[in-house]
């Protein structure tokens, strides 16, 4: 079948989101009123999403959106008085933005908007949703389904967060050098959260969640292009691209889970992996190591199997040691234990896991129990391994992974 109409539609939608985000950012940066900026452009954005796939993207997309916004607003005013703020914004647009756009492009202030959305005064859990809504124009219902929340709850959180940006006086600016690191972490974390939500649907059955991985990469590209000298911004993009490159190999044709070590590397997207590799190289040359670069390096070591035919567990172990020293978390500790098991044997790996035993957070953490079960099985501790598999199976929400764990458990008792 011909997929060109689909590609044209996707391109038009991407252009509409791009122009919309730039206008929202430009307006909000001047008034701190994100909701009013969105309000002013809502109708025009909906019209663009509907029309551009058919007519093609206009030559000056932002000017098109503004013109439609103004015309629609005139209609709306005739019917009823719409929000004062929305009208004020349109006056602003008419007088400033359009004048500016006649001879140059609208300045890109999306990065400033992202820093406002990921400000420390904004609750961490709402930062990624807020960026997806303001920069990409996703509605609350779409974002809610991706983050497994009710649309009403998500809607309330978004409204509250926008209110906080305005009322508490959160600035729209890229932080200065001295504080950039910490603030950039929050932006990168929000982008990674969006990507991870999409990534957690490996079968790609839920279109909205799969889109979220694509949007995460899109935002990652945006930040990396706006801050090309920030190694961690490049590191995050590299990490996401490495993961995305392996998407098709994560399930076999029957839809069953395939662990990384057993994936058929012919199914990996080599162009994406090459791009990720090049980004990581650029980041590393800047000489400031960080969490995302290290995680991307782990991915790189795994993906290197496509060339060498074997996985360099020694290198992976060293990367996890480094990651553990700068960003210790149960997730990192578990992956480090797995790498220790591969390099020093299952006993050493299990010992590294047992050290974590006191952390109550692990009680409900599937990867801990799955790793533990695998190592116990290798040591022939059958009953303990079965017990750990049961915990892991009970904690898994992905049916394919659940089937995989069940098969391992069955193999153990036969």
């Amino acid at each position, binding site marked *: 079948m011909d997929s060109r109409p689909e590609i044209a539609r996707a391109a038009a939608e991407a252009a509409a989101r791009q122009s919309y985000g730039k206008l929202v950012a430009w307006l909000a940066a001047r008034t701190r009123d994100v909701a009013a900026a969105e309000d002013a452009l809502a109708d025009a954005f909906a019209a663009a999403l509907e029309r551009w796939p058919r007519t093609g993207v206009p030559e000056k997309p932002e000017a098109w959106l503004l013109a439609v916004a103004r015309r629609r607003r005139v209609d709306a005013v005739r019917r009823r008085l719409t929000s*004062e703020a929305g009208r004020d914004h349109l006056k602003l647009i008419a007088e400033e933005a359009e004048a500016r756009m006649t001879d140059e492009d609208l300045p890109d202030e999306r990065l400033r908007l992202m820093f406002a959305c990921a400000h420390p005064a904004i609750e961490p859990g709402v930062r990624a949703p807020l960026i997806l809504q303001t920069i990409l124009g996703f509605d609350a219902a779409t974002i809610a389904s991706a983050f497994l929340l009710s649309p009403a709850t998500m809607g309330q959180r978004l409204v509250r967060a926008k209110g906080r940006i305005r009322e508490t006086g959160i600035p729209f600016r890229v932080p200065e050098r001295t504080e950039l690191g910490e603030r950039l972490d929050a932006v990168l974390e929000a982008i990674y959260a969006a990507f991870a939500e999409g990534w957690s649907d490996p079968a790609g059955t839920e279109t909205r969640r799969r889109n979220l991985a694509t949007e995460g990469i899109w935002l990652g590209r945006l930040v990396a292009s706006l801050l090309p000298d920030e190694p961690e911004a490049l590191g995050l993009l590299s990490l996401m691209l490495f993961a995305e490159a392996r998407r098709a190999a994560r399930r076999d044709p029957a839809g069953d889970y395939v662990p990384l070590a057993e994936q058929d590397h012919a199914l990996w997207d080599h162009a994406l992996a090459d791009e990720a590799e090049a980004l990581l190289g650029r980041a590393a040359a800047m000489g400031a190591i960080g969490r995302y670069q290290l995680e991307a390096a782990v991915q790189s070591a795994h993906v290197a199997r496509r060339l060498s035919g074997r996985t360099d567990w020694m290198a992976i172990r060293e990367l996890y040691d480094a990651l553990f020293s700068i960003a210790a978390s149960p997730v990192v500790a578990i992956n480090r234990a797995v790498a220790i098991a591969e390099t020093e044997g299952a006993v050493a790996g299990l010992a590294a896991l047992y050290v974590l035993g006191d952390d109550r957070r692990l009680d409900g953490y599937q990867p801990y129990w799955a790793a533990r079960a695998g190592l116990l099985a290798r040591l022939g501790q059958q009953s303990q391994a079965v017990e750990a598999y049961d915990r892991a199976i009970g904690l898994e929400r992905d049916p394919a992974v659940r089937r995989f764990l069940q098969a391992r458990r069955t193999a153990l008792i036969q």
Partner: protein
Amino acid sequence: MRYMLLINNDEAALANTPVEKAQQMSAAYGAYTEALKKSGAWLAGERLRPTQATTSVRIADGKTNVIDGPYADTKEQLAGFYMIEAADIDTAIDWAARCPAASTGTVELRPIWEMADYMPKK
């Protein structure tokens, strides 16, 4: 923007502070206030007498109830305030972090609800 810095401290713990440390703390507040004034951020600021001097008033059924003590029993108590002028929350957070109370208790930051915020613009 105008911000209120509400200083909350554990009153009982502070009451047991040795004299020497209390003097040090007092000097730190003096220096902090001076820095606020020199930079033009200071609008107002006072220390409050302890909660044992608090009186709470509320009217119910047309009767004025006067209560000896604070409205709410909390671990930390309101001990004083500063009102400052700051460009945005980042600048206000910087000032709050420099306040000696940030190391002994909590500094709560609240933007002032300006008249202009609820008068619709024509």
